């Protein structure tokens, strides 16, 4: 399509856009005073926005159709990057520098930035956990926030009643959540696809409802406040210091979880999960016990969420059931899919986007969630496989490199 044609098409789209949005954008009724406000200027506004977006949209679609996709590896910088990185020692030093920089973040930025990055780190953990079930196992779980909640409440409740310390609660949250994952896992073993999704959603909601109503244990919808921040061998920090401290703990947990996930992924067990995702019947015929695999997946991902939950409770010092709704589950799912299902790097990127984007969109004030919703669509349409597509590991075959 030539530019003129695209312009023409965009003009038509703009017109359609104006027509479509007419009642909502132009007319505003005041049902009390029975008055109507006609905001004709909206036509111009909507028209020009749609025109612009449509132009860019079609242009990009055309480019993709022609097979022009930006491939980092093939770009000039990319090639230089790859030749540099593959030099011995370079990768190692790059990684170390990165780690140092990341560790330094709380000491060089504002507490606000540290805070939101800590949130992002917690969501990276959640994303990695959910990625195990959804990305590797191919089981859609829409109730993941419940596991997260179980972890958070484990810490809050144990602390409130028995004064249990953060460091003790951290593993306990994981264990409690794993137990919960097991209980949820049992009845859903036979279910597939969207039926599984809806049952997990159901479990998620049930958990929230119980939390809301079980006043004596959970304090109901009032939530639990004044949850202590973690201490360092008995030493506690001020508000600023503890923000940094939690950041570092979260970072450590992220690294640990990445390590564990990575080890699992590339193991015999991890492979069997991927196989289950690809074709469950064939998988069973290869001697893999599907029920066992599914249960393991549920338990491990739950445990990870539980740990994230403890961190979450410690960071916010206050939790209530509102933080563990379907909406949260959906956002975690967005992280996984947006980043690139099955890919650890993808999930990290996804979490950074989903958590940081709305924060940095604050500049757009009330348009922020509107833009966020729109960007979700854009990212999916133009990068349907997620930002980082998962690639399967290439195995080196020892002593037989001649064939390669």
């Amino acid at each position, binding site marked *: 399509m030539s530019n003129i044609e695209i312009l023409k098409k965009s003009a038509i789209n703009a017109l359609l856009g104006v027509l479509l949005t007419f009642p909502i954008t132009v007319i*505003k009724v*005041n*049902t*009390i005073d029975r008055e109507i*406000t006609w905001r004709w200027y909206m036509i111009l506004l909507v028209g020009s926005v749609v025109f612009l977006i449509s132009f860019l949209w079609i242009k990009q679609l055309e480019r993709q159709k022609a097979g022009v996709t930006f491939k980092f590896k093939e770009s000039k910088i990319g090639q230089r990057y790859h030749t540099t990185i593959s030099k011995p020692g370079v990768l190692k030093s790059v990684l170390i520098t990165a780690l140092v920089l990341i560790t330094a973040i709380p000491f060089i930025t*504002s*507490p*606000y930035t*540290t*805070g*939101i990055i800590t*949130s992002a780190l917690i969501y990276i953990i959640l994303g990695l956990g959910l990625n195990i079930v959804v990305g590797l196992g191919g089981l859609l779980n829409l109730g993941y926030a419940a596991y997260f909640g179980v972890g958070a409440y484990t810490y809050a409740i144990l602390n409130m009643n028995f004064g249990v310390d953060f460091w003790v609660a951290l593993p306990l949250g994981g264990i409690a959540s794993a137990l919960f994952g097991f209980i949820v896992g049992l009845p859903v073993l036979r279910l597939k696809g969207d039926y599984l999704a809806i049952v997990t959603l159901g479990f998620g909601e049930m958990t929230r409802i119980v939390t*809301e*109503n079980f006043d004596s244990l959970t304090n*109901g*919808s*009032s*939530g639990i*406040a*004044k949850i202590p921040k973690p201490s360092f061998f008995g030493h506690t920090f*001020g*508000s*600023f210091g503890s*923000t940094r401290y939690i950041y570092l703990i979260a970072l450590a947990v992220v690294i640990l979880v990445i390590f564990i996930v990575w080890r699992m992924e590339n193991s015999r067990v991890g492979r069997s999960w991927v196989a289950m995702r690809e074709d469950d019947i064939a998988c069973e015929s290869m001697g893999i016990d599907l029920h066992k695999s599914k249960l393991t997946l549920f338990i491990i991902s739950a445990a990870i969420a539980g740990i994230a939950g403890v961190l*979450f409770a410690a*960071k*916010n*010092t*206050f*939790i*209530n059931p*509102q*933080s563990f709704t379907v*909406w949260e589950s959906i956002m975690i799912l967005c992280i996984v899919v947006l980043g690139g299902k099955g890919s650890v790097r993808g999930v990290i990127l996804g979490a950074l986007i989903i958590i940081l984007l709305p*924060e940095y969109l*604050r500049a757009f*004030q*009330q348009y*922020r*969630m509107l833009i966020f919703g729109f960007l979700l669509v854009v990212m999916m349409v133009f990068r349907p496989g997620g930002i980082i597509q998962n690639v399967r590991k290439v195995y080196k075959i020892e002593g037989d490199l001649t064939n390669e």
Partner: protein
Amino acid sequence: ATNAPIKIGVPGAQSGDLASYGIPTVRAVEIYTEMWNAKGGVLGRKIEFFAEDESCKPELATNVAAKLVGMKVDGIIGHICSGTTKAAMSIYRDANIVAITPSATSNDLTDGEYPNFFRAIAKDSFQAVTAANLVKDLGLKKIAVLHDKGDYGKSFATAVKELVEAEGVTEVVLFDGITVGAVDYSAIINKVSGSNADAVVYGGYHPEASKLVTQMKKSNNDIPFISDDGVKDNTFIQVAREYAEGVYATGPEDTSSNKMAQEAIKLHEEKYGEKPGAFFLNACAAIESLLKAIEIAGTTDYEAVRKALQTNRFDTTLGNIGFSETGDPIGVEFKPFQVKDGVYVEVK
């Protein structure tokens, strides 16, 4: 540095299902900053405000609070929900910033933990007393107490129940939570009529209340309906229309004769083309008090402003109010109201 603008943070729910409670506050602050700036600001300094959305989520509230602290705001109007307020308060406290909420009503907030906390609304247990008295005065024998399972609604309902039961005259025949956002409430209404209650006491907000009232009246289940200040809101009457007639609600003293309130409402209508939403007047009172306190203190210094707030009384859209040691409002008396001919009038 003396003519740098005074910065006010306005954190609250501005998107998501609770946006309708948060947006009116932003608008109130906007109207008041314009009004004050037109008069030359405070202490000769312009006022700037920063609305920050936390969708009523505690985890976002802590981030927003850190952000506002980082921006070195001089005061906070918010948060909107009790939950987010609880999550954010310690951050403001550690940073020495006063916060006045227009709407967070949870009792725990004013238990002395946060010296920087104030609210331009009465706490939950406070208005329950008014409601319980109303139950007594109306001579009700059996009541059904419902709530929306939320923090606010449930504590109001529980408090009413306890007060009424302690009195021993009235029997609570039903105590149950309804589901917010459900498409139909006929089952619970049937249950109420099955319980033979003489009246319904409801703890929660106007959307559910109007649905309940409408459905009750439509099925000719016309028993008195008593609720809280979440319902004593014009939106309730606007939405429930003729069905709102006769509904009781507790609320701060009558503001229809309050000039400032009328003025603020008028400004809102001019600016946004619609009637203000929930907690608008509370928010007006909050920002007004804060600005006046700064003026009185002659500085934005934390201790001074806090002192000023605690030791003075302010003419606001809610009447002449002050703040107690713990931050609860003084002078925001709760009175029972009833809808008559489409307006709330005080029950004498």
